[in-house]
């Protein structure tokens, strides 16, 4: 007798990519944000590879040309090709954002961990430092730092540094709060009882569970860094020669661009900035939903 061989029930596990795409379909803000970011990355990379980057600096092309075939975004009063300026400016903005964001998050993670995991006077010191610094508007202190710098010392890197100096408190408090709750969970107790060392517990047990929060904090930091460096540049405290979006808007306002009918001059950087900040804000919102399912919308 031939035993009826039951076919092994096969549950096809969807591939990681399908799962990711499915998640993105539910999490629309993350999807749209990533899409805009991808578009910006393609625009910049393409521009960096093909355009003559010197044209992003003053005195390189015909001045005050409206957008047209030769100059898709027009040129400004100082003879920058605004298309190339956008390419370089986007790249520089990304550089400031990622540098300051990464550094701020790193400091925050280290301080937050130290504070929550070891407790005692270290915790008290770090916590009160954060609490005292929080009511002080970071941007205004950044104005002081940026205006104290010698004009020649203001570069893309010092901008990132200025921004990060007062931007680590947020991640510190977030990581601290998360570690505090995680420390009490059973898996940490088990790890401790089984003789795992402090570092082992931090990196092996707590860190993996913290990653979504750290990712969310990172994007938040990048957003804040881009925002802060943009504000500094709009006030004329940025590296004036570089084609950062804020610098161009500052220069355009200084030359009364709208009064003089050079409408395209401030518009190009403003549009670029709207895309950058919206994409970061949308990704931020999406990651928030991922890290903190309680705010997930009931749909």
């Amino acid at each position, binding site marked *: 007798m031939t035993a009826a061989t039951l076919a092994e029930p096969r549950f096809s596990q969807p591939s990681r990519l399908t799962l990711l795409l499915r998640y993105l379909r539910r999490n629309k803000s993350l999807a749209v944000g990533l899409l805009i970011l991808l578009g910006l990355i393609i625009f910049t990379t393409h521009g960096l590879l093909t355009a003559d980057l010197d044209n992003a600096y003053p005195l390189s092309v015909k001045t005050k040309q409206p957008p047209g075939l030769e100059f898709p975004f027009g040129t400004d009063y100082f003879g920058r090709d605004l298309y190339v300026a956008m390419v370089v400016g986007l790249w520089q903005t990304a550089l400031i954002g990622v540098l300051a964001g990464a550094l701020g998050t790193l400091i925050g993670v280290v301080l937050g961990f130290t504070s929550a995991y070891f407790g005692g006077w270290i915790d008290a010191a770090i916590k009160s430092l954060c609490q005292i610094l929080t009511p002080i508007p970071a941007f*205004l202190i950044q104005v002081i730092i940026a205006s104290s710098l010698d004009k020649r010392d203001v570069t893309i890197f010092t901008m990132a540094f200025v921004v990060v100096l007062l931007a680590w408190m947020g991640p510190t408090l977030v990581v601290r709060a998360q570690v505090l709750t995680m420390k009490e969970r059973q898996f940490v107790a088990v790890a401790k009882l089984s003789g795992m060392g402090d570092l082992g517990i931090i990196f092996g047990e707590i860190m993996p569970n913290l990653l979504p929060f750290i990712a969310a904090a990172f994007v938040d930091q990048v957003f804040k860094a881009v925002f802060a460096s943009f504000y500094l540049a709009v006030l004329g405290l940025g590296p004036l020669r570089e084609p950062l979006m804020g610098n161009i808007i500052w220069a355009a306002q200084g030359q009364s661009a*709208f009064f003089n009918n050079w409408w395209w001059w401030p518009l190009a950087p403003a549009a670029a900035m709207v895309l950058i900040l919206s994409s970061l804000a*949308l990704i931020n919102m999406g990651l928030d939903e991922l890290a903190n399912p309680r705010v997930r919308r009931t749909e």
Partner: protein
Amino acid sequence: MSIQLVIRRVLFLILVVWSASTITFFIPRLSSKNPVRERFAELARLGGFSPQDLETIVASYNKQFGLDNPLGQQYLDYLMAIARLDLGVSLNKFPKTVIDLIMDSLPWTITLLLVTTILSFIIGNLLGAIAAWPRAPQWMRTLATPFILFQGIPPVLMGVLLLFFVAFRLKLAPLGGAYSTGVIPDWSSVEFVLDVARHQILPALALILGSVGGWVLSMRGMGVTVQGEDYVVFAEHKGLGGAAIFRDYYLRNALLPQVTGLALALGTVITSAIVVESMFALPGLGRVLDAAIRANDFFVIYGVVLFVTIAVATLMVLVEFLYPLLDPRVRHE
């Protein structure tokens, strides 16, 4: 509220102000840049006196402002001066003091800030509460969506876009300035007041549009939480009407944390207003700061920053004192 709590908060406020003053004192001195020399070197380049005299002028200014004293002495003098609200003099508009410049421009900034903050707080929280309220009509709930999409756009960028579309293209509003050129300021004439209002519309709109989204977003999150609370369910079971539940049970409770949010947002709100003012060339703190940055008038930059910092920290503590008035649960503790 207990006296102890008040004392604790006031001590905290003093600590914050002291830290802010210390930061604004030491940062400029850490840098190799000498504000007085910088300013006069610029004047010397423009002509007017020979560069050889520069050192003499700088030395006499340093003496005049006490900048040649030992650092500790300078620091103490500085703290004492701040306690008297003396923020020094302007290098550019000497002998005007920094506090004079601030006081001249402060009414403009405060009016703009009050109007825009109150409006955006009300609009944002209402839209957010409706967006999270399942029984609201669909069209009302989607009103919030554009604001959520644009919540990442800061007021200054809104300003540039409004300048382009409303002022430049449609010519519905002026391109900047406090009032039309050639008009003599006269607050008793209706015409002048209307002209000023017309010039304030775009900056105010930029600030409102740029900050409504944040309120919508946090209120929507808060609304979802409050809906699940027992007292809302209880009110429904009691048979209360939708409007009553929305107003008295749902909105009122969801609004409480938003007031704390308002205190936390103050710093951002004020810095945004300052940058928008400088963009629209309005005669507020923003223009004072902008002019000071353009003219290398460092004492004014430091003074304005310190003044706003102290104001923000004080307001934050004040909001905390007001909180018990809104939330009876805190009052009884």
